[in-house]
């Protein structure tokens, strides 16, 4: 079985490529997460007056 990251055989380049991919996906998910959080905040703002109404 191979060692996980043989740095002497270009392992730094391989690690770099995989890290770029992971960072790209994480940044994307974080942006979408921030958008969903904003939607949640706006929804809470909108539902506040409805919840205050006497039933």
């Amino acid at each position, binding site marked *: *079985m*191979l060692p*996980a990251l*043989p740095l002497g*055989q*270009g*392992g730094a*380049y*391989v690690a*770099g*490529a*995989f890290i*770029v*991919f992971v960072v*790209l*996906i994480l940044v*994307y*998910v974080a942006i*979408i997460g921030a*958008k*969903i959080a904003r*939607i949640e905040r*706006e*929804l809470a703002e*909108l539902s506040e*007056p*409805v919840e205050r*109404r006497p039933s």
Partner: protein
Amino acid sequence: MTSLASTSDPSAAKVRRGFGRGLVPLSAVTLVAMAAALGMVFFYAPLDADQGFVQKIFYLHVPMALVALVGFIAAGVMGFAHLRSGDRRWDLRSYVAIHISTILAVGVLATGSIWARASWGHWWVWSEPMLVAFLIVFLLYAVYPMLRFSIEDPGRQARSASVFAVAAGAFVPLNFAAVRSAQSLTHPQVFSTTGGGMPGEMFATFLVGLVAMALLFVTLWKLELTAKHAAEQLRAVRRRIEAAADDGDPVGGPVAEPGRPLAGAAS
């Protein structure tokens, strides 16, 4: 124009139920597939006799490139469906597919540059047709958001974006067919009519990586569609509440179409 928020539109009701459906199990399957692909890349696939360990980038770079290109083509097909049916859900699907494919294309260019540096000693080789062809495709799609958001009218915006998606989607396979026919001696030809010459373990690892990348694309596509649709529904509810407040009714009133304020609504 089809309203995504209209309560009387059965297709809109279907969309409300549909975009986020299955997202959690799909995400779980994607995570498992990504973990399996990663494990196979580092612990199952043999070292390449020519490039050694650096060739492991292939299992990330090539599936990402293929999925990005198929995503662009799929976005063209969705754009065509929008032009044919007038259903704006297809435009939204096309837009999100292009968005995800463009993000993957950034990854393809970055990982390709790293692989080129490790294998050829240069970050970029302008004489290599495959690299330049991919860059052209990326730059072509980089124009899409500018075109889309330069048009304010929602109907015109959707139609123009769909025309772009169809034209650019048709350009993608033509571009790469031309490059393949150029028969480059530098860029590795991964697939050919004779199978590409990959050993079985390498090909299996590649296929698992491709499936994992395709699943990741679909998961992110559904996630963004769900988020965009939720934002659109929220805007429609806000307009409804504003219109109702103007009429003296705290929560009642009709539902506005996305991008179109209700008559009498506060601007």
